[in-house]
């Protein structure tokens, strides 16, 4: 478990991280989401005791990083894949890391096997591709079989196969009960990887919530509806005070109506009451990108406590009343959130 309390980092007059408090729980993959320059890496370096906070504290299982005896056995970190001397072999790199925390030398071969680098263990790390370097970084993090793992932008620059591998890997680590904290600015990636999200913008906490709840509360929920009598349908919906938009026929399918801030139940019942035939009735969810830009764009308005008032939250989608810390269990997402047509269930 990682607990940050009022974590602040100033560089001269610039405030990189501003009074950040959050908790990362074990047994889940927690995403650390924010645009470039939001302070994610600085926060991670402070967690690991590499940078000294200007104010506040961060503890791992109740202790500061610098208080840990043999820290590699408790915390594994991949902050940058290239933290390796280019002329040193992968095995030598792992060997000295292992020796520093009295980790048996045979563990080096084990982690090389886990990340699939056994074949190139004797090669100089400078010649590694980004994907291989990333795997070596993960091997370093796993060396001490730690209960807490931190990854900073682990999928940056990886090919789809590598991304899939890392994603599954992190899920497996979390399923083993470890604390997994992953930063990214790739929102769609976080939607697939993380069950919990800590969202920051300009060094401040925007939200700590489950991924699903984050999308629910932040993105616009609309209902797509289509039937043979579109004009009448339009009139009925307008008559109920709903915002309706016409979608002309196109790549997305035949012409339809988009109803904002409603639910399939509401639209379906309205149509049924007046005897209208429907050919399509589907909830559409906005993408994480939309949610994210919406939130970070108005960073001043939307800090942690103000989220309950998010105007576009859909009441029918079951958004919790206090969304900053939702408590109910939420299903893990297994499908990609399409950039434009999110949860379209046609």
């Amino acid at each position: 478990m990682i607990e940050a309390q009022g974590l602040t980092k100033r560089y001269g007059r610039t405030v990189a991280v501003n009074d950040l408090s959050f908790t990362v729980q074990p047994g889940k993959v927690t995403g650390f989401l924010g645009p470039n320059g939001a302070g994610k890496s600085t926060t991670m370096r402070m967690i690991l005791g590499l940078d000294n906070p200007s104010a506040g504290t961060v503890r791992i299982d109740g202790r500061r990083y610098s208080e840990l005896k043999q820290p590699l056995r408790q915390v594994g970190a991949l902050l940058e894949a290239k933290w390796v001397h280019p002329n040193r072999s992968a095995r030598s790199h792992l060997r000295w890391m292992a020796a520093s925390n009295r980790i048996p030398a045979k563990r080096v071969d084990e982690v090389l096997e886990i990340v699939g680098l056994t074949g190139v263990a004797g090669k100089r790390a400078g010649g590694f591709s980004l994907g291989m370097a990333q795997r070596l970084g993960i091997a370093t993090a796993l060396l001490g079989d730690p209960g807490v793992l931190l990854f900073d932008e682990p999928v940056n620059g990886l090919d789809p196969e590598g991304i899939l591998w890392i994603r599954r890997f992190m899920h497996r680590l979390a399923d083993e009960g470890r604390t997994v904290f992953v930063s990214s600015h790739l929102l769609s990636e976080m939607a697939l990887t993380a069950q919990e999200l800590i969202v920051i913008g300009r060094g401040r906490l925007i939200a700590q919530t489950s991924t699903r709840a984050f999308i629910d509360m932040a993105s616009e929920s609309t209902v797509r509806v289509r039937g043979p009598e579109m004009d009448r349908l339009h009139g009925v919906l307008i008559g109920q005070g709903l915002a309706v938009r016409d979608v002309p026929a196109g790549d997305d399918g035949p012409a339809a109506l988009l109803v904002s801030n409603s639910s399939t139940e509401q639209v379906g019942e309205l149509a049924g009451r007046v005897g209208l035939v429907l050919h399509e009735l589907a909830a559409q969810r906005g993408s994480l990108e939309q949610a994210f830009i919406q939130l970070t764009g108005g960073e001043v308005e939307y800090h942690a406590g103000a989220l309950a008032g998010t105007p576009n939250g859909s009441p029918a989608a079951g958004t919790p009343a206090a969304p900053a810390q939702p408590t109910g269990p939420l299903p893990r997402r297994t499908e990609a959130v399409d950039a434009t047509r999110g949860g379209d269930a046609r």
Partner: protein
Amino acid sequence: MTLLTVERIKLFSTRSPWWCMILATALTVGLTSIFAATTKPADLPTFTPSVTQFAFSFGLVVMMVMATLAVTTEYRFSTIRSTFLAVPTRTPALVAKAVVVALLAGIVGEITAVGSWGIAKLIQPDAPLGIDTAQEYRNVFGVGLIYLLSAVLALAVGLIVRQSAGAVVIELVYLLLLENLLPAIPRIGDHIQHWLPYTVGNNFIVAGQPETDDGPPAIEGMPFGPWGSLVYYAAVCVGLFVIGLVLAKRRDA
């Protein structure tokens, strides 16, 4: 002990330390052998053990570069962060590095010193190259101690500057230019010279040696005797290293 092993693995798992060690030895011993081979028979009576060490600064500079790189490459490739992740209190790791690097430099120093003396003896068996007096012992075997301490100094500069080129330039400019130019200042130059660390360190090797034409020059009127000079030089090197430690602990990695 563990951390010494770690630093040993780190140092010897890249190739540049090996090259530095070979270069330091080859340069020094090679120059001495040329010197010995070209010495005129008339000069043989003054070809003493101290003269065989005239080139020790060459190897010394190379080993100082190695010591500097041992820490600056860690910053260059961010492995210093991995080091500090493994040893978050930082100081023990850096002290271990200093011990390993300094010991290695000391050993290389002794090898170059004994190698230089040995090759001179081989080439000029008739020269008075016997090592008998305490001063002659210091002349040859003292070189290793200066290598050892200078490595600590170089490591400290690397730790403070954190950049290979910058640190090496500072060391070379200081060693080769500043310590030679400052004494040229009228009136106060001589007094300054007597307290310049490297000059004082050298005094440990050369103090009390007979006036010869070719050995490293001995300077008159030094404030300390040989061992006092060594302690003074050691204090400067270790002092600078402590400053480096404090900075490394305080600064963000």
